[in-house]
């Protein structure tokens, strides 16, 4: 159906010209979800009633000539972002029945624009994982190959965008959780600069690393969504006091003379040869547009995974101490208070969450704090300084998003360290706090998408979007869509 092919900025034009109505579009998407969800499993909660109500309100706004860029655009939201009155589980048993009494700031901003929220998407429990297999409730399958994972932790959001079960989605990225699933599912995903987007209402995993960001079909939609959700928020003391930016203004300006840094450390042994070939091909496309390629070095790249898994687990063990069975969520256990804590947490958390709480508690415990947590925080400084140095020589760093295309369901789930190592190209970005996005840049021989990662200077998302947009003008990878997802397909 033609409606399903339209991006958010294309829908905006149709709504404005009254060629389409938000209710019509919402109905098309709700029907699409019914048709393909059985094969994809992207949503934990679909909210047809709420979506149609919001669509009717959007329709009224367009009738009144009061439409904003996202008025009537159907979106999906990762299930760790609080939506007032709509169940928000973090894909965890411990929050299986939690109905937030408030909207996250990003949701408030989307609702102010009149966006339509179709539902909440699957994820690794508490965003801990790289394949969405750690969800306590269901598996999500990659729309490009249903025996493959969609990546994670925002796997439901990325799969929903790829399978055209929504126009665009929000995810969250602590170590690559937007960019890696975007790469695996052949869509655009951005982790903004730390502080660009308010974290108020995002269920905390690792507070010094978490950022909410858009997952979209193309770069213009990414700019549109980022514009909608960004900006200072008094409810998040780490949100940056930056003025609102028009991220679409710079699209189409071209990249003549721009310096692209290619870090030698990212072209490692073990990288999939098809991924490597696609990345070099993409770099040649950007060179063809007038960019200059510089070889650069990020010498501490090899230490990023170890650093990250100390810092993120330490922060997680502290953040997740709040799940005690008292005020919301699951409560288990007869007997005394300690028994209630133990039973609630042991039955409420899945294995990966327990593993990370254990690791985080250990690295923060007396006698080990200096050896692990302090040491990792010092190495984090070195990783940050690597980026500072690199950005003296280039404006944008170009790397693969992931060393391989989407791996198979069940392939890494029993080997935590192998799963952690699959984040090797994305996590240093979170440690340094800089922005990065992933765009589709090719396909493997098996027809699986490959992602190109662009990393920028702090608060320079505009340049990332400009480069990514220039690339999409020259290529058609972002226009392709997986087939055979409707019932009766092979």
């Amino acid at each position, binding site marked *: 159906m033609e409606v399903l092919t339209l991006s958010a900025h294309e829908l905006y034009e149709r709504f404005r010209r009254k060629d389409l109505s938000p209710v019509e579009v919402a109905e098309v998407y709700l029907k699409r979800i019914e048709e393909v969800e059985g094969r994809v499993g992207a949503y934990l909660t679909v909210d047809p009633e709420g979506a149609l109500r919001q669509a009717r309100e959007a329709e009224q706004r367009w009738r009144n000539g009061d439409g904003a860029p996202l008025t009537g655009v159907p979106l999906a939201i990762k299930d760790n972002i609080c939506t007032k009155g709509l169940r928000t589980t973090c894909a965890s048993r411990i929050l299986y029945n939690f*109905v937030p009494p408030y909207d996250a700031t990003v949701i408030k901003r989307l609702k102010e624009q009149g966006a339509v929220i179709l539902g909440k998407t699957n994820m690794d429990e508490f965003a801990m994982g790289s394949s969405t297999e750690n969800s306590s409730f269901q598996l999500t399958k990659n729309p490009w190959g249903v025996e493959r994972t969609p990546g994670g932790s925002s796997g439901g959001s990325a799969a929903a965008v790829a399978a055209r079960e929504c126009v665009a989605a929000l995810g969250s990225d602590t170590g690559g959780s937007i960019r890696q699933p975007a790469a695996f599912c052949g869509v655009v995903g951005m982790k903004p600069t730390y502080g660009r987007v308010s974290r108020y209402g995002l269920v905390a995993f690792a507070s010094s690393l978490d950022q909410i960001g858009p997952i979209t079909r193309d770069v213009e939609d990414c700019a549109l969504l980022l514009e909608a959700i960004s900006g200072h928020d008094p409810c998040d003391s780490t949100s940056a006091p930056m003025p609102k930016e028009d991220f679409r203004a710079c699209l189409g300006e071209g990249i003549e003379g721009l310096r692209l840094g290619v870090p030698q450390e990212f072209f490692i042994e073990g990288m999939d040869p098809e991924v490597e070939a696609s990345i070099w091909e993409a770099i040649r496309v950007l060179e063809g547009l007038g960019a200059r390629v510089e070889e650069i070095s990020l010498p501490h790249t090899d230490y990023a995974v170890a650093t990250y898994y100390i810092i993120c687990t330490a922060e997680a063990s502290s953040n997740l101490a709040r799940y005690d069975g008292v005020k919301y969520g699951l409560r288990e256990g007869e007997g005394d208070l300690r028994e209630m804590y*133990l039973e609630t*947490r042991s039955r409420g958390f899945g294995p990966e969450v327990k593993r990370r709480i254990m690791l985080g508690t250990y690295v923060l415990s007396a006698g080990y704090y200096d050896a692990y947590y302090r040491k990792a925080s010092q190495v984090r400084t070195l990783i940050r300084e690597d980026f500072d140095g690199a950005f003296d020589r280039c404006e944008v760093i170009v790397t693969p998003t992931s060393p391989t295309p989407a791996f198979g369901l069940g392939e890494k789930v029993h080997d935590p360290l192998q799963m952690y190592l699959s984040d090797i190209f994305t996590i240093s970005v979170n440690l340094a706090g800089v922005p990065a996005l992933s765009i589709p840049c090719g396909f493997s021989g098996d027809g699986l998408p490959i992602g190109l990662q662009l990393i920028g200077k702090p608060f320079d998302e505009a340049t990332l979007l400009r480069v990514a947009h220039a690339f999409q003008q020259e290529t058609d990878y972002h226009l392709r869509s997986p087939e055979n997802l409707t019932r009766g397909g092979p």
Partner: protein
Amino acid sequence: MKISLQEVEYVAGLARLKLSEEEKELFTGQLNTILQYMDKLNELDTADVEPTFHVVPHVNAFREDEPQRSMEREEVMANAPSRKGDFFRVPRIL
């Protein structure tokens, strides 16, 4: 061995997690593998390096001390696993 089964039990207690015997064995093995990998960081001399705990410069975010509306009590209490009127009910603590 970086971490023993006894230490795993101790850490689980700190984190208020009750682990089954199988989980204790599994986590002891897996945490050892992960902690061994983390030893990699000791290759780096960081004696003179300041730690980074946060990438944005930390400043206090002040606001005017004015009363604001809080969330609706009933909506907040609606999530309570157990309640008595407007109170959260918990097991006896004294």
